[in-house]
Structures are given as structure tokens and as C-alpha cells.
């Protein structure tokens, strides 16, 4: 059984690209063999790094705000649901609007499909399907106390994309001391000098070793 305060934590640095989450999502009864999440290859030419893409469930969801058909709704528990079938017109506005790249358009059913954090499972005390199968626990469902006890990374839920602040329900694990993840697309343009904090070079590993050695 899950606790009342249990939350979803994502740590892409722990992802090993096994795609268990995608297959588990596919196997969920209500998804009818179609996965609502996907695996992202970060930079295939230079690294084996992958990242699971589950919905971050923004408090003010961009996908729902841009939907011209009023097909994306957020329930009281903060979960941003997948498209309402009868309303979705398959325009892909949400796909373009989401800063995390979560929604994807499925041409076969002419619908947008996105992760709904397995609200059908969490409402009856089960963890989301992907979190139950992730072997490296890059997708983790539990309490904040638990995740801070077993990890050196710390959860954040504040983001900024191109200067626009964003607060999410799902938490991202990152280096201790980071309060906000600031991403600007201009930093990734050819020839741009990144102003982004290089999280990988931060002291997370040193501090982690200190914790272990102590």
C-alpha cells in the first residue's frame, strides 16, 4: 500500500535505458497495449544516457492551456489527465507546448496520449506501474523522507523554461542545493555558451561519498 503523502520522483541520472517502464505502461489494463510514456535518448552520438519521460503534472499545465478543444483537464489531486477522447482533435498543440516533451500524438487513433500517473492505480493504493518495475529506481514512488534518506540527490519541483517559471507535482532529483532548474533553449543552439549549471560536475558525488564514508 502507498502512503497518503507518497509522491513521484524522477532521477534521469539513474536511468539505464532498459525500457521496463515503457513496457510496464503498455501492459497496464487500461492502456490497451499502448504505452503512455516513452524513453528519451539524450544525445545518442556521444552518450548512452537515457531519460524516462513521464508527465511532470504541472500546477499550471501548458498542454491544457493551449488545447483548442478543451480536451486536457486537471483533477483536484493535481493530475493532468490524458486527452478526453470525444474532445481531442489531434492538433498536437500540446505536443509542441509541453516543455518536458511529454504528450505524444498517436496517428492511428488520432489522439494525444500522455501519462496520467496511473490515477486508476494510485487511487486504490497501488504505485504507478512504471515505478514498480524500474530496476534502478530512476522512477521512484514514495515519501520525501524515504527518498532523501536513501539518495544524495535532492528533489526539486521548480523549473524555468525560457524565463517562464513552472511548478510541477512530480519531483526531479538533482544536486543538493539546487532550488530551481533553469533551462533556456538558446543555451543549446550551435555556438551558444551555456549559462546552465552543469549538474553533473557539481559536488553531488563528492558529498555522496562523504555520506557513505561517514
Amino acid at each position, binding site marked *: 500500500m502507498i502512503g497518503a503523502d507518497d509522491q513521484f520522483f524522477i532521477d534521469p541520472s539513474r536511468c539505464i535505458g532498459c525500457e521496463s517502464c515503457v513496457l510496464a505502461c503498455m501492459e497496464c489494463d487500461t492502456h490497451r497495449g499502448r504505452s503512455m510514456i516513452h524513453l528519451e535518448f539524450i544525445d545518442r552520438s556521444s552518450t548512452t544516457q537515457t531519460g524516462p519521460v513521464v508527465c511532470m503534472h504541472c500546477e499550471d499545465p501548458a498542454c491544457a492551456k493551449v488545447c483548442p478543444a478543451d480536451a486536457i483537464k*486537471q483533477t483536484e489531486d493535481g493530475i493532468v489527465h490524458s486527452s478526453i477522447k470525444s474532445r481531442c482533435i489531434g492538433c498536437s498543440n500540446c505536443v509542441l507546448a509541453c516543455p518536458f516533451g511529454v504528450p505524444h500524438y498517436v496517428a492511428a487513433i488520432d489522439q494525444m496520449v500522455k501519462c496520467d500517473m496511473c490515477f486508476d492505480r494510485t487511487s486504490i493504493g497501488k504505485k504507478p506501474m512504471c515505478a514498480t518495475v524500474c530496476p534502478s529506481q530512476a522512477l521512484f514512488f514514495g515519501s520525501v523522507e524515504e527518498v532523501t534518506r536513501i539518495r544524495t540527490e535532492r528533489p526539486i519541483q521548480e523549473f524555468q523554461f525560457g524565463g517562464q517559471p513552472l511548478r510541477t507535482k512530480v519531483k526531479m532529483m538533482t544536486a543538493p542545493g539546487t532550488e530551481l532548474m533553469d533551462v533556456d533553449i538558446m543555451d543549446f543552439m550551435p555556438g551558444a555558451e551555456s549559462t546552465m549549471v552543469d549538474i553533473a560536475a557539481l559536488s553531488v558525488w563528492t558529498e555522496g561519498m562523504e555520506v557513505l564514508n561517514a
Partner: protein
Amino acid sequence: MPDSVRWKEDFPVPSAEDSYATRREFTKFLGLTSVAFLAGTCAAVARKLWEQVTAKATTAVAVASLDEIPAGGSKLFRYPTENDACILLRLAPEKFVAFNQNCTHLNCPVHFEAESSQLVCPCHHGFFSAEDGKAVAGPPRRGLNALTVSLRDGQVWVQHDS
């Protein structure tokens, strides 16, 4: 853009607000639909009345020659427009009657039965007297609309009652 623009109120992101109807909105909806129904009924009545007024102005037309129908026979024709099916009956050698063919129950076409001298609606077994078009049995309560028949120049002429 301010968050208070009208379309954002109409298309809210939270699902609870999406399915929420205020009492004022519900009352407005009821009021407007009632007015729409009333207007629709008035329009339908006005149209019907107008059709009756214009139909009365139509002139008599010849629909058959005298020797075309045998006694006890019938002929279908359209009067006053192509959308109004009518039936002409020859009850006796010199007796012609004509009715609108639509049953007054649910508008099915009625057929002439010479043996019983009745017009029969096969849909729900409605029976009308062939003499004057009065409903005699079955669901219809109102008689068939009769047309005035006159014989001139070897032709049968029909006209709406004036």
C-alpha cells in the same frame, strides 16, 4: 494576457470547474431554451396559417376525365402542390369525392376499399368513411380533409373549400 479573460472562465483547466454549472447559468439556459421553443412553435403555427391562407387562394384544377375512373375506382393526384397527395374516388357513376390522402393520425397514405366504401390506413388500422371522410374506427379522431369536387366539360375539377 490577464487570467480573468472570459474564454478562460468558459474553458477552465480544472475538471471540477469544467463540469460545474452555476444556478444563474442553469436558469439562463432554461429561460433561453423555453423562449427558443416558444419562438419555434409560433413560427410553425404562423407558417401553417400562412399555408392555409395561400392554399385557399388556389384555383380549381381538372384532375381526371369523367370516363377515366370506373365506378368504385380511385385516382391519386397532387393538389395544391406537388407535396400534397390527394385521392379522388368515384363512389357512384355521378358521385365523385376527393380527400387529402394523409391519415389524420400519423400522416400515412390512406387507401380506398370499394367493398366497404371506406378509406383504410394500413399503418394503425384507421378507417374513414368514403362518403364524407369522417373517422369511423381506429386511432384517428379527425376526419380526412375533403376537397370540393365539381364536374364540368367532361372533367372532374377539385378545389379547396372556400
